[in-house]
């Protein structure tokens, strides 16, 4: 297809999308279900004060479980596509002494912030994903500064990646042994269990994002660990 034809076709599609979306947005009928109200009514029972965390880790925790699985799938594929013989260009300790020095001060700060965000998630904005992202940011900066983490000890790495998911799944399944439905939390334990899950998830998510960054193929990637255990 010639380029101008392609642009014309894309333009038509885009205008169609725009028209349809605007039409749909402006003509949305009056909602018949008021979900936020139901969230508010059940908030107390969920064991979490912050409604979004309650939705994420209690009301719709199944979504979150699968979402963590999505992260795991991404990182498993990332690990599978590591290059094992590409010797790293990363031989020098830290290319930039400035960065190195900065990192030493920034890292603890980032980690502390992430812990705070994680903890605040139970009553205010924040939670595992944001905290995990901060952990990842810390990891990425450390990596750029030349600290080599998450590239050795493959078993441990994989365990770390999966730890959050394992804990989540275990808690979810253990409910069934007590005769309660999958993904239910025991009475009165919801808050603390959710916090525990979030804490471990933060670690795993952070590690996942770091691994995806560190093990990405390319010149800057370190030597991959062995696939063999």
């Amino acid at each position, binding site marked *: 297809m010639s380029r101008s034809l392609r642009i014309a076709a894309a333009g038509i599609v885009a205008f169609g999308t725009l028209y349809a979306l605007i039409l749909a947005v402006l003509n949305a009928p009056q909602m018949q279900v008021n979900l936020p109200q139901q969230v508010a009514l059940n908030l107390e029972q969920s064991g979490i004060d912050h409604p979004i965390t309650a939705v994420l880790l209690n009301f719709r925790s199944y979504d979150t479980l699968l979402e963590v699985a999505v992260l795991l799938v991404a990182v498993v594929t990332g690990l599978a596509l590591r290059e094992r013989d590409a010797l790293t260009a990363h031989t020098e300790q830290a290319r930039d002494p400035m960065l190195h020095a900065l990192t030493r001060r920034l890292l603890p700060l980032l980690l502390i912030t992430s812990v705070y965000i994680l903890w605040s998630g139970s009553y205010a904005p924040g939670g595992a994903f944001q905290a995990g992202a901060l952990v990842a940011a810390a990891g990425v900066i450390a990596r750029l500064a030349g600290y080599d983490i998450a590239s050795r000890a493959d078993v441990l790495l994989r365990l770390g990646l999966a730890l959050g998911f394992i804990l989540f799944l275990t808690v979810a399944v253990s409910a069934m042994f007590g005769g309660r439905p999958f993904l239910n939390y025991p009475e009165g334990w919801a808050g603390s269990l959710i916090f525990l899950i979030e804490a471990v998830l933060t670690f795993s998510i952070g590690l996942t994002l770091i691994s995806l*960054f560190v093990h*990405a193929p390319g010149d*800057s990637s370190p030597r991959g660990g062995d696939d063999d255990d």
Partner: protein
Amino acid sequence: MIVFDILLGIGLILAASGVFLSAQLFRSVVLFVVFGLLLAITWTRLQAPDLALAEAAIGAGLTGVLFLDTLGTLRKAKHKRHRKKETHS
């Protein structure tokens, strides 16, 4: 504050267009990060601080870094290909 919202919305649209229209990938990525930051502000306007936090950390921050890092790899690969071509010719 309605003016601010209109400006913010237009800013979002402009940033997005910038990402697409820019000829250089590097500039696209930078504009993408800018777009993410604007979006983070938008989320606070929509009373979604969680999303603002997540967008800033993940959407703009982490994704941006991933893109930048990849850009570096692509450049190196390109150089290498060019060099190969030169030695061959």
